[in-house]
């Protein structure tokens, strides 16, 4: 049976892990190579690195970080943040990413997903969707630029479009829940899960194993979390033990 995945996420800038509620109030949280290895030893099923640098120099540093992490990591590595072209994706895959996450660039140019799928294969393409509840109606819309731009695009329909275009997985972040610790947006997960056959990584809002269990029950194949692992509120091993006790199939 395919197990459910627990995925720590490292936000990196200038070769260091940073933390904060996404892009605001960032502070240093350590060395990415050390942290990635520590998470692997604790039983992480995969690592996601999100490059939050805003400069070309930052991008080069991120590529070096990916290569350094790859050297020690024997589990899958997904890298996202600032992937705007085939060349960006190739650069990260050559440095050692197994999958690349594409976010705003695919919103402004959906054909990028199709181009990527053709060139590097569906299995390497993760569509990262930041979704926020619409303020005055039903459903969710895609947000970009750290949540500052509401695109009006329906998040659920976009997940289905992304599948058709060639994405192989959905990294679904609830912008309302991110950083709150109130749990994943389960309605968003249910709706997305019904609209696509792609595996879904739930992101945004977890503060412990019970939230992850809820996410799996709502259709997530994997759960992502950052702050609860960085702050050592809990460990990957502890989370997986709790999930296993609750009857979820995990790799122990």
């Amino acid at each position: 049976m395919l197990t459910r995945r627990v995925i720590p996420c490292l936000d990196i800038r200038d070769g260091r892990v940073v933390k904060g509620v996404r892009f605001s109030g960032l502070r240093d949280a350590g060395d990415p190579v050390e942290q990635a290895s520590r998470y692997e030893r604790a039983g992480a099923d995969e690592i996601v690195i999100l490059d939050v640098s805003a400069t070309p120099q930052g991008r080069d540093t991120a590529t070096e970080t990916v290569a350094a992490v790859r050297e020690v990591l024997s589990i899958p590595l997904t890298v996202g943040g600032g992937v705007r072209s085939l060349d960006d994706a190739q650069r990260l895959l050559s440095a050692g990413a197994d999958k690349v996450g594409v976010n705003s660039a695919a919103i402004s140019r959906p054909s990028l997903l199709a181009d990527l799928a053709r060139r590097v294969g569906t299995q390497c393409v993760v569509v990262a969707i930041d979704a926020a509840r619409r303020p005055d109606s039903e459903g969710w819309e895609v947000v970009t630029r750290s949540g500052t731009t509401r695109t009006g695009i329906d998040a659920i329909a976009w997940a289905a479009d992304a599948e058709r275009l060639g994405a192989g997985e959905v990294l679904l972040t609830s912008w309302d829940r991110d950083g709150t610790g109130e749990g994943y947006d389960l309605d968003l997960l249910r709706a997305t899960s019904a609209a696509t056959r792609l595996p879904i990584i739930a992101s945004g809002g977890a503060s412990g194993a019970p939230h992850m269990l809820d996410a799996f029950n709502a259709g997530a194949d994997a759960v992502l979390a950052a702050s609860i692992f960085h702050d050592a509120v809990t460990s990957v091993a502890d989370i997986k033990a709790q999930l296993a006790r609750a009857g979820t199939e995990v790799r122990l």
Partner: protein
Amino acid sequence: MTRDVAIIATGTANTASVSAAFRRCGCTSRITTDRAEVRETGRVVLPGVGSFEAGMAALRSLGLEETLRKRIDRGGPVLAICLGMQLLCSGSDESPGVEGLGVIDADVRRLDADVRVPQFGWNMVHRGNTSLPDDGYAYYANSFCLANAPEGWKHATTTYGSPFVAAIERGSLLACQFHPELSGSWGARLLEGWLSRSEAGIPC
């Protein structure tokens, strides 16, 4: 003793991860498209991510189809990973009409309709009669699979919807549908095992 590994660059594979995994096993690994290297290096890895058609097109344009078949006929150690394993088969549902290498006399089919595709994540491998270290969790990223092993091959199995061939083996040819380079310490032991079994190199 240096253990040389030549990793074939088909253009789309995650060669950086494969190469790093072999470095962690103490090997010198090279990423190559050179026929002589594929013929003569002690061990050859055929990785692969992407479509069956693109993978075969790459092998054909590099002139490596015959080189690989001959190497395998002679018993030269080869490890095929994911799409690499599928390319060894006769054909695939993914690319109707495209001929594979035909080393494994069987066709690759799409995963069951009632499961999420691609299969992304860790699934249990039952080693069966293969030389895999033991039963363990392996990392998969596949939409297609080999349903049954033809006669004359040892094989391991995994179930996703239905059972399928997780790994298939004959002599020093080992082909895995999963990614040993991404399968943690279990995957590392698998690679070590293949490296030591293929210590003798290529028989003349």
